[in-house]
């Protein structure tokens, strides 16, 4: 069932459903035709900020624009003046790369105005409820109340696995990396099939196994656009439950899977779960892909080259923290390397 938006009120009600969360103080670009992405960014309030926003958007929109491309600019803010200036600035710049802006819509949550026509109206709860009901029928997940609540959904009870980590490390040290890799791949395959949440014991074992780069890479290699939903599910769960010392890997995997799925907002939220004292170059790669608006299909197209080049450049561009291993695929020796502390 399609929503088939027919009014500004309906469009405003539908935006959280396509974005995954309810935007606040934001500017959102919604295309009318396939080809361009939906993009959200914080509303710029100064001339310098407006230019900075365009600098960030110009790459993706120049690359993805096709003849006849057109979109709606939606500003959600109480600051109507900034919305009008920002949407006009953006529309002008988009015009320069061949993208027409057919709608410049502002809303403060209660009222809306279409800047191009001057048409105004009210946002009604009944419309929001009708749109929400329609999305339920499509099977789509309901949006988070805000971007903050989307981020909060990635934080769970981390104590149960924290208590099991010492035993998991002891067991891993008594095993062989290749055996742990095979177990991790098998457990991932089982998750793909049944979708059942890992037990605390299996979760601890998986997180310890991920510390061995060849194992993490084997699981990373398993990712494709076809199974990204399943990967998002398992890594969301382990990011929620993973203590600081082992969370960088699952959070980076979740960031990558989310990007592969096309969900930039969720990917950023995942990367924010990488502990700040544990730099992770996989996370850095995902961050760059997100900010540069790299399309997920590039993963399939350039998978090998990307990893190879990233591996070549990583040692030069990303400072290596003392005592911490790098984690770029392809930089490791052929033999398995045990996790630190083993």
């Amino acid at each position, binding site marked *: 069932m399609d929503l088939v938006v027919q009014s500004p009120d309906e469009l405003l009600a539908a935006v959280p459903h396509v974005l995954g969360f309810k935007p606040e103080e934001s500017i959102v670009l919604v295309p009318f035709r396939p080809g361009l992405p939906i993009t959200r*960014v*914080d509303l710029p309030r100064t001339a310098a900020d407006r230019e900075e926003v365009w600098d960030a958007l110009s790459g993706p929109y120049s690359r993805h624009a096709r003849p006849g491309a057109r979109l709606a600019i939606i500003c959600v803010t109480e600051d109507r003046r900034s919305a009008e200036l920002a949407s006009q600035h953006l529309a002008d710049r988009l015009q320069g790369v061949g993208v027409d802006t057919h709608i410049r819509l502002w809303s403060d949550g209660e009222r809306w105005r279409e800047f191009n026509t001057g048409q105004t109206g009210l946002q009604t709860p009944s419309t929001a409820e009708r749109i929400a009901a329609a999305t339920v029928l499509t099977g789509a997940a309901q949006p988070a109340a805000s971007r903050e609540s989307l981020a909060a959904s990635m934080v769970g009870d981390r104590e149960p696995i924290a208590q099991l980590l010492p035993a998991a490390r002891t067991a891993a040290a008594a095993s062989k990396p290749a055996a742990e890799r095979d177990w991790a791949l098998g457990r991932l395959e089982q998750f793909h099939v049944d979708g059942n949440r890992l037990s605390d014991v299996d979760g601890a074992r998986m997180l310890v196994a991920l510390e061995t780069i060849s194992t993490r890479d084997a699981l990373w290699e398993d990712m494709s656009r076809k199974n990204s939903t399943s990967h998002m599910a398992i890594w969301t769960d382990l990011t929620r439950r993973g203590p600081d010392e082992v969370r960088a890997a699952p959070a980076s995997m979740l*960031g990558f899977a989310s990007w592969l799925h096309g969900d930039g907002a969720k990917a950023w939220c995942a990367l924010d779960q990488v502990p700040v004292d544990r730099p992770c170059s996989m996370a850095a790669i995902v961050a760059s892909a997100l900010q540069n608006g790299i399309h997920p299909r590039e993963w399939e197209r350039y998978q090998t080259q990307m990893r190879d080049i990233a591996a070549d450049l990583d040692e030069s561009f990303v400072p290596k923290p003392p005592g911490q291993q790098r984690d770029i695929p392809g930089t490791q020796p052929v033999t398995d390397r045990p996790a630190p502390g083993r």
Partner: protein
Amino acid sequence: MNHDDATPAQHSATERQLRRLVVPEPAAYAPDKRLDVIHEPDLDLLWGGQQ
């Protein structure tokens, strides 16, 4: 991939573009400057088949 292959020092256009992927940690991106990009959104859900 055979890492022992002798590869040219020059990078292709694609490779040069991919160089941009190696950047600072995520924390270096100010949260208020980040782009939330949804690729290949379900526009039929929004507009029906009448875009």
